[in-house]
């Protein structure tokens, strides 16, 4: 007991006769808020309140609601969200053409980058300036000089000249078809080879010209017996 000015929380809860307690009221109020049916012993005032609020939540019987025609018109006028979905899934002609052109442009740019990159790499391979592992790979794939020869001579042309003294080197494995039109290294390979056989491909190999790439040591051999494509 804290005296006459005790807070309401300290006071004993007094049940008023004929009236439900505060906690019970809260439960009933929660039921009203949740639109649940009230128990039979709920206070009459609360029951009446619940009935009135349920009447508010009920929809009017029949007839057009205020604003219904305007809302439906807005729904139709907006093209409806389905139109947006359709646009996203199946663009109409103009959008589709635009996207097609854009994708083709991106594809062309990517192909150009790959072609230029492969051409430069092939030229560097025939110049013998690639790292040893890459150079050896190029030696196997596109018949570029081997790395060890480049190391001895200091340039790819000399290396190629020593390893291929006057005759085409045997090519046990050439995964890429020599006449493949899409392979950019092959035309350069052919020109370098041609100059190499003439004995002056060293300088050409030192300064590879992208516009006149060297010939490959093995021009197209459609009937090459050791064509790697099969192996």
């Amino acid at each position: 007991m804290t005296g006459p000015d005790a807070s309401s929380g300290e006071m004993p809860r007094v049940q008023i006769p004929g009236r439900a307690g505060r906690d019970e009221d809260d439960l009933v109020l929660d039921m009203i808020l949740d639109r649940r049916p009230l128990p039979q012993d709920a206070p009459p005032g609360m029951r009446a309140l619940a009935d009135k609020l349920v009447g508010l939540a009920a929809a009017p019987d029949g007839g057009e609601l205020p604003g219904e025609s305007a809302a439906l018109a807005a729904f139709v006028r907006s093209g409806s969200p389905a139109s947006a979905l359709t646009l996203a899934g199946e663009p109409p002609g103009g959008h589709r053409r635009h996207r097609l052109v854009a994708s083709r442009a991106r594809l062309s740019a990517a192909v150009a980058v790959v072609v230029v990159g492969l051409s430069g790499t092939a030229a560097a391979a025939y110049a013998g300036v690639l790292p040893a592992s890459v150079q050896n790979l190029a030696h196997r794939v596109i018949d570029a000089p081997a790395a060890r020869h480049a190391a001895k001579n200091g340039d790819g042309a000399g290396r190629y000249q020593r390893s291929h003294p006057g005759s085409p080197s045997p090519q046990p494995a050439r995964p890429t078809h020599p006449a493949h039109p899409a392979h950019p290294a092959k035309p350069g390979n052919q020109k370098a080879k041609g100059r190499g056989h003439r004995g002056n491909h060293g300088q050409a190999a030192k300064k590879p010209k992208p516009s006149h790439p060297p010939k490959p040591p093995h021009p197209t051999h459609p009937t090459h017996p050791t064509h790697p494509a099969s192996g």
Partner: protein
Amino acid sequence: MLGAAFEVILAGARAGDQDAFAAIFRDIQPSLLRYLQVIAADAEDAAGDTWVQVIAGLASFSGDEQAFKAWLFTIARHRAIDSGRSRARRRALPARLGTTYLQQVAPDTADVVLERLSTHAVLTAIASLPADQAEIIMLRVVAGLDAPAVALIVGKSPGAVRVAAHRGLRRLATVLDQSGVTV
């Protein structure tokens, strides 16, 4: 409440089915109008703005019926606030409401008139409550939203929402009892 059918109906509305959209509209519009009648000066105008925004955002909405209602009533609340509805304007509710409802009533349906007059009286009593209590009661009872959803809409904690709702209901019971409103 559309209940279990809501998902299908919403998918139909998103696919452009006018009947599906109408079903959603008819399910929500009565409670939306009553909510706006309590918090806004021009309920039908605010409701129209709300539906326009709902239609625009329908394709990007995802969620169940409760989430849809919470989203829609949040929009409605913002539309009411944006259009400058004030507490003072809400005081004009009884006269305007009475005119609106009576104009929509068929002349030979006395029961409907009495029902709407009763509805009007209850709405008037709710509008006389403090603004936060009136709005929370409308969202909880009329819109059918749960306490957490209402708390998000009005920017209060769920506990504060519950306390305000209880106070509002107690006061409302007293007001209706004193005014003799019958259902």
